């Protein structure tokens, strides 16, 4: 439902891509074409930026903070709240962030609220969770990657 919702929204709104990001900055789901844009960088900055805006708004006015729109010369970035745990980040290229688009992003953010947590924890729970030996394998990889001789 979450991935399908993002894909449908990306297509309908004409967005270049849409990211669902958790508040720690990790990518949860992607729809559209990131192409040369690094989703990890985009998600970490988008998440922190939205949280900072939320904090600023809360300091100034209190109340709920739902969307943040950046309008640039080549396009727009729309950030919308998805509950307390996630943010919906939408990139439009060659299009502006019209009132309709902001409204649509806010609505999808509200729709996703409540289903994201369930989706993340339940989908894929088909017995393929972290297997025995995962920790040891990860620790071996850590030794390999973080070594002085590169």
């Amino acid at each position, binding site marked *: 439902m979450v991935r399908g919702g993002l894909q449908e929204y990306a297509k309908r709104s004409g967005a270049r891509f849409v990211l669902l990001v958790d508040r720690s900055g990790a990518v949860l789901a992607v729809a559209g074409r990131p192409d040369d844009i690094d989703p*990890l960088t985009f998600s*970490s900055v988008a998440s922190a930026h939205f949280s900072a805006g939320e904090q600023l708004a809360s300091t100034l006015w209190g109340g709920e903070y739902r969307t943040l729109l950046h309008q640039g010369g080549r396009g727009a970035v729309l950030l919308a709240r998805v509950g307390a745990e996630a943010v919906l980040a939408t990139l439009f290229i060659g299009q502006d962030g019209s009132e309709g688009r902001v409204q649509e992003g806010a609505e999808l953010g509200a729709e996703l609220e409540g289903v994201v947590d369930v989706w993340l924890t339940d989908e894929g729970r088909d017995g393929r969770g*972290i297997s025995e030996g*995962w920790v040891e394998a990860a620790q071996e990889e*850590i030794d390999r990657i*973080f*070594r002085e001789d590169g």
Partner: protein
Amino acid sequence: MSMINYASREINCKIVYYGPGLGGKTTSLEYVYSRVNPDTRGKMISLATETDRTLFFDFLPIDLGSIRGFKTRFHLYTVPGQVYYNASRKLILKGVDGIIFVADSQTSRAEANIESMHNLYENLETYGYDLNQIPFAIQYNKRDLPDILPTHELRAQLNPQGVPDFETIATRGDGVFDTLKAVSKLVVKALS
């Protein structure tokens, strides 16, 4: 805390470098960036002032690849150390899985270390996190400078709980990987 995304079969772990201003957090991250294989690291971003002081955070993603069917990544962050950037520090701690405290070994910075450590406890508490339950290690940095406190004194001031700690010289990279490895291993262990 750690998010295992069963939908996309991804595990993302967030490790934050914390500590007083000018203690060596960004330098430690820059060392990691300079030494890990370019294939495993993403782009390092620094939201800094014109004088290269961290304004919001530095970010470096490290890709461990697919481990037993889960794409596994570490997201390394630094926070701004200056006292007045506390709101930014607090935001970056959201969802943290592991913390590296970078203490400045210079005698003149002893108070700043202690203040920053208290600040870390306070900020974690606002999220309901308990540092005793989070993978945690300490770097006693700048061991090459004159007028530094002996390690046992730093340990008494900052590490009464006896978490893994390391003497480091971040400008040369001494001890930086040792600390990062220690915390990273604790983080993955905490996932099991």
